[in-house]
């Protein structure tokens, strides 16, 4: 359980996190979503006391993180895959981290096995790929078998198998009753992993709801259709709240009308349909709608909102 109240972080004149309140509940995966620079990492760093809030407070399992007698057993955090000394082996890194809490070799071996690092555990971290660094970071987070897990962009740099593994791990740990707080700027990832979403934009919470609700609230329920007489059908369907776009030859995407309505209309006019597919809005689209006014760094020029923006280098580079 993580609870933030009036949490604020200012860096000089810039407000990174602006007076936010939220609760992350146990037993589910809570996604922390937002464009790059929205304040996700800053918020997570404040949770474990690396950054001091300018005002407000955040507690974990009822206490500020630093007040716990065994912090690593309360919270496991992956905040930065590169928060590891490059000259030390993965094994020694974990051993040193664990030693602070009296966590010994057997648990270190366990998390190494759990994260699939056996073959590289004795190697120095400097030579690790981004994906291996990420796995090591997750291994460190799991060391204390914590009740709460905070993972900042955990799938960054992982191969598809690794992404799947993180997803299953998160779901599994949540099913054991733990609190899982997971950030990403990839909505597609969240759609598959999270039960609940907190969406952050420019340091403010713009949505805090179950994934299903956020999907349902999207206005962009669309219908894809295919017809040899697509143009004629488009004219027939035109209306005030209806948007019709031609996606490719003889294919249309219609928003504002239901699939049965379109099918009936086509039948009455004797227009053959080769495809009629209702498309529920993707989380991606819902997210874009939510954040379009809150994106800190827009891709310049022609890239329109609705196109997945190129990932901003700021967070990726770190």
């Amino acid at each position, binding site marked *: 359980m993580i609870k933030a109240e009036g949490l604020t972080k200012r860096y000089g004149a810039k407000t990174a996190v602006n007076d936010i309140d939220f609760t992350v509940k*146990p037993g589910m995966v809570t996604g922390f979503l937002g464009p790059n620079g929205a304040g996700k990492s800053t918020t997570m760093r404040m949770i474990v*006391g690396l950054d001091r809030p300018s005002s407000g407070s955040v507690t974990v399992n009822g206490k500020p993180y*630093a007040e716990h007698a065994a912090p*690593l057993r309360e919270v496991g955090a992956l905040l930065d895959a590169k928060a*590891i000394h490059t000259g*030390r082996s993965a094994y020694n890194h974990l051993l040193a981290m664990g*030693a602070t*809490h009296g966590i010994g070799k057997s648990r270190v071996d366990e998390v190494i096995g759990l994260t699939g690092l056996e073959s590289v555990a004795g190697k120095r971290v400097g030579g690790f790929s981004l994906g291996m660094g990420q796995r090591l970071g997750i291994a460190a987070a799991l060391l204390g078998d914590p009740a709460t897990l905070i993972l900042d962009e955990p799938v960054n740099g992982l191969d598809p198998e690794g992404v799947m593994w993180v997803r299953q791990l998160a779901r599994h740990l949540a099913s054991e009753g*733990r609190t899982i707080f997971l950030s990403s700027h990839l909505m597609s990832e969240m759609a598959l992993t999270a039960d609940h979403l907190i969406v952050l934009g420019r340091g403010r919470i713009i949505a805090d709801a179950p994934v299903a609700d956020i999907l349902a609230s999207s206005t962009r329920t669309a219908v894809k259709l295919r017809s040899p007489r697509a143009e004629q059908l488009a004219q027939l369907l035109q209306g005030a709240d209806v948007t019709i776009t031609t996606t490719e030859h003889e294919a249309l995407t219609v928003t504002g009308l239901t699939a049965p309505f379109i099918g009936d209309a086509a039948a009455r006019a004797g227009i053959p349909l080769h495809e009629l597919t209702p498309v529920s809005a993707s989380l991606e689209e819902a997210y874009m709608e939510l954040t379009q006014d809150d994106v800190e760094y827009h891709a310049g020029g022609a890239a329109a909102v609705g196109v997945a923006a190129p990932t901003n280098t700021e967070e990726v580079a770190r």
Partner: protein
Amino acid sequence: MSATITAPRPTGGSKLSTGGVIRSEWIKLRSVRSTIWSYAIVIAVSVGMALLLSALTNFGDTTVPADQHSTILLQAATFGIYFGQLVVAVLGVLVISGEYSTGMIRSTLTAVPKRLPALAAKAFVLFATTVVVGLVASFLSLLIAVPILAGKGIDADFSDGSLIANVALSALYLGLVAVFSLGVGTVLRSSAGGIAAALGVILLLPTVLQVFAGITQAQWAVDVMPYLFSNAGLSIFTPSFDGSGPEQWQNLLIVLVWTAVSLAAGALLIKRRDA
């Protein structure tokens, strides 16, 4: 969702403890190459210098007065410390600046969120290890110098214990150099900046002040000279011939103050700053 909401289950088990943090810092210190290299160099240089100095010592036909025998032996045994202090200063900075440059500090401070115990454990482990290495280096050097110099009419006199004590004090000084530099590194957070600053204080400051005093004849510069870190430090284990200047314990006190100020500044900043 098939979640069975079991109460979060701290499985009991061990807690964050001072001993644990010390063990953690020991694992960290011994598991990077810079540590091994630095300490190996300290020992090698010390032993090498002792060998060189004793082998090259040549008094011709003159008989060295007996009261100077201990001083000559002490010099041979501790000459390597002049170089060793520079190596240890670099190591002291790297122990913390390496964590800042790699991001490791965030892992460290997440494990020990109150922060000061981590810095204190670092200082303790670094001090203890460096003193032990210093003892090994200087006593090995003494062991080498004694027989060689005995062949040249310089006899070791262990009767009053002052030779042994001074050799041991040189190791203590080495430990304090490391902790002083750790403080500097904590304040500056950068390897390059930290090393420059630490070596600047240890190596450059006495030279610069010396030159300055020579040029300007400023009395204050001459007065300040004995209070500089390395001037006082090297005098901890080398008693002055004529009995001028601060006594050994006073020199130790001066170095302790430098070290305390440096570490306290580091402690203040590590506690305050965002990591």
